[in-house]
């Protein structure tokens, strides 16, 4: 069933209103519980890809009895095809900083970090300048909150929140066992709220305009807007803020080049949707209105009919083989097996039926990997092989 949603563009995040001082004042005048309620009723979910309810995260962290807590902005934007967080930090950094203060105010933190991926080193000076100005202002209004930029060192997996903590603690960025979760045991073992850059920017919108304005956008279970990083075979690559819940059909109509064969939703760890399923696929979180609903960190890669899906898959698997942290068996060995496996099938060293063995392996990887990323590394494999099996075979 096709959704009737047309693409609804929005313009909140990048609207440069230069009103952060007022918004900050408004936030600080409210008590934490009200702010939490505001967030919960907005139904904002994490925009990094995992989609955990933001209000709940802040609430749990606020309830922890600890003198030291941290707010961390996750700017380790490493998912292939995603580049929205960079734009936010470049264009509206103060929104993110204001949101971090809001979070600190809610949970009772005095220190915050922006974990910035090493690839974005060129943003660092500018960002630190803004932080200086921001901190200066905070001092003027007697607000005790420090923000530091922590530079990543080049590891995709550090986008996983517990791996990010490990990395900040000076260790290898290997995801931890969960539970405990970051809200109780985060950076340096302290309760920590870690939010994606975009998530924080949305909280700015919510605190400024109220939850209702945000809630009224999007569809049930997928409220509000979301930034999409559009790349691949498209005449207009770039970043777009759209209401959630759109159908992929409408999306392709707007952004495709007229020959779109498939769209990879959610980057290398996401799913490939072939043309025949565009109409039945909605972009949003689980709890669906339509046939399939795909959450996404916002990476939308379009492929036209000139592209070999084998090459696409090969590229993704190569990526994961390198970027898996390597600690857990299903992800470390599984990624190698998938990659070598499709090569073997392509060269006819293994029969086509070997793909089915590998598909069963992807289930195991999904069930047993230690972290969220490890659980999703095989998504591209299963969706591409299921839909483009003929392209995988010799």
């Amino acid at each position, binding site marked *: 069933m096709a959704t009737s949603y047309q693409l609804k563009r929005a313009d909140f995040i990048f609207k440069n209103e230069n009103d952060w001082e007022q918004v900050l004042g408004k936030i600080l005048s409210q008590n934490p519980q009200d702010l939490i309620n505001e967030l919960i009723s907005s139904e904002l979910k994490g925009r990094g890809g995992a989609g955990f309810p933001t209000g709940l995260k802040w609430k749990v962290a606020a309830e922890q009895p600890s003198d030291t807590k941290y707010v961390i902005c996750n700017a380790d934007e490493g998912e292939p095809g995603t580049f929205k967080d960079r734009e936010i930090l470049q264009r509206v950094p103060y929104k993110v900083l204001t949101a971090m203060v809001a979070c600190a105010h809610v949970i009772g933190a005095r220190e915050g970090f922006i974990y910035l991926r090493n690839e974005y080193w060129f943003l660092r000076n500018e960002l630190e300048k803004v932080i200086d100005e921001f901190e200066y202002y905070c001092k003027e209004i007697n607000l005790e909150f420090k923000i530091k930029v922590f530079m990543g060192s080049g*590891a995709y*997996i550090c986008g996983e929140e517990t791996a990010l903590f490990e990395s900040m603690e000076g260790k*290898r960025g290997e995801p931890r*066992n969960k*539970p405990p979760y970051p809200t109780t045991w985060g950076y340096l073992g302290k309760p920590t709220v870690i939010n994606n850059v975009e998530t924080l920017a949305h909280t700015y919108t919510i605190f400024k305009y109220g939850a209702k304005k945000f809630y009224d956008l999007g569809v049930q279970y997928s409220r509000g807007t979301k930034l999409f990083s559009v790349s691949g075979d498209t005449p207009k690559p770039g970043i777009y803020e759209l209401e959630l819940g759109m159908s992929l059909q409408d999306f392709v109509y707007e952004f495709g080049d007229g020959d779109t064969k498939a769209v990879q939703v959610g980057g290398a760890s996401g799913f490939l949707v072939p043309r025949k399923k565009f109409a039945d696929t909605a972009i949003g979180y689980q709890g669906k209105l339509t046939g399939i609903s795909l959450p996404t960190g916002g990476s939308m890669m379009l492929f036209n009919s000139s592209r070999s899906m084998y090459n696409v898959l090969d590229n993704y698997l190569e990526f*994961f*083989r*390198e*970027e*898996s*942290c*390597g*600690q*857990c*068996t*299903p992800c*470390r*060995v*599984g*990624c*190698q*097996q998938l990659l*070598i*496996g499709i090569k*073997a099938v392509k060269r006819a060293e*293994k029969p086509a039926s070997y793909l089915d*063995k590998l598909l*069963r*392996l992807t*289930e*195991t990887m*999904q*069930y*047993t*990997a*230690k972290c969220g990323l490890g*659980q999703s590394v095989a998504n591209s494999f299963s969706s591409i092989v299921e839909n483009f099996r003929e392209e995988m075979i010799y």
Partner: protein
Amino acid sequence: MTTKKINISINGFPAQVKPGITILDAASDNGIIIPTLCYHKDLCVAGNCRVCVVEVAGQKRLSAACATPCEEGMEILTNSLKVRNSRKHIIELLLSEHNADCTKCYRNGNCELQELASEYKIMTQDFIELLPYKTYSVDMYSPSIIKDDSKCIRCQRCVRTCAELQGVNALTVAHKGDHMKISTFMEKAMNAVVCTNCGQCINHCPTGALVEKNYIEEVWEAIANPSKHVVVQTAPAVRIGLGEELGFEPGSRNTGKMVSALKRLGFDSVLDTDFTADLTIIEEGTELLTRLKKALVDKDADVKLPMATSCSPGWIKYIEHMYPEYLDNLSTCKSPQQMFGALVKTYYAKARNLEPDKIVSVSIMPCTAKKFEANRPEMFDSGYRDVDYVLTTRELAIMIKQAGINFKALEESKFDRLMGESTGAGVIFGATGGVMEAALRTAYEIVTGREVPFKNLEIAPVRGMEGVREASIKIENPKPEWKFLDGVELKCAVAHGLVNAKTVMDSVKKGTASYHFIEIMACPGGCLGGGGQPIPTSPEIRQKRAEAIYAEDSHMQIRKSHENPEVQKLYRDFLKEPLGEISHKLLHTKYLPRERF
């Protein structure tokens, strides 16, 4: 204190468990075994092999049993189809990355991965073998340890062992993704880094990725050579560990059978390291008293206290790397193995009218660092290599099996003489605290003329498995020549596992502790938990071995080193006096400062 239990169900059967307990422990308490690989009782939980995954009702994803705490109402399935299929996949994945040429593996028959593969009947290799895609290296440079990366399953038990138990950190995890591997600093050879050769990594390795360098064939050859006189010495902890490799439960005492087996293997003389353990006590005890006299009476500022034991070669290399400024605090006594070696090719050779170069001196040790120790350039004081070959308990067990000896059915025999007589004090060298206890038994008696004031000579405060233990003995009413010790409270510390050695040394360094004498053993539990002992090891197993050691002691007729008649004879006939000239030449040694980084 009573804690309220929570209700869970495992495979449909209700169970009550302590809150916070992991699924793995809860299952084990309820008689269900969940397979593990990266999990080890001695180490913190890693949760990275994923072999222990179980299904929790209501969750799509499986949970690692070792890392997931039980919650009220949890319904756990440890053997559902989903669990079985996933587990099988994971074992297959590990095998695809593993050099599974089992028949050529040193750990063939005692490998956790092999066991799992057998249990799950992995009969085919469906996944593509990954070995040809990678370059693996085998590091054979260390005289003690061989590291074969092709057999590594990256469970990181060795890394955690080296860091958590030993505080050495010679091993680390390096790189990521498919390149992730267990490595040393800059991928140097094990003998070129801070490795202490303790071998705990071997004991904790589930596969054959870390094994001892074995000298079995060399020893067989020596035995077969009619022109050689092959002498073997056996360390105290071997006799209570060996049985585990040969069908006995942990904690079985097999001294007599071990001696019989060694005789049947063809050794010309089966002797006891316990003899030189007793000798060590005389030398080291005298050294301690001499140091105390210099410090207390002569006010000699150069004399270093506390004095630390020097029997454990892992500890020696550790202090050489980590605290080189404290080398003068080490007793200059060689370890019992090396004292034995030096005496075999001098005293023993002379007494038995043998050419020293015709003697092959073999030692059976619970230890891999002893292989390194025997190889040190300082250990040639007899004019020859004092100890030619060092075998671990495990290697001896292999030889016994190779020789077709039915160990269980063996009669009991006694050690041969010259250098085969020992005391209860010698045997407790094998347990943490044992050297301290043996030394106190002798030193106290030398000073006061009376036995140590403990029931049955059992100095309880230095026994046990606490990482660091402290004890003090007040000296009252000493003999006239030890008058200066009257009223002195002799303060001692005992540590085992190098991470505990660090604790002690740091407090010595900071000046927060004022010990006179410290005993340090590199391995958890002391030698009985040594890196050359049977695999597996666990706190329970080490506890049982300790009980066996102390039982050996209490069954000995003579329980104080200075009462060992052969030791007394040795002084009369050869050494003349403790710390004398010959002692200095043969029984004492020097240490070498090494780089920490």
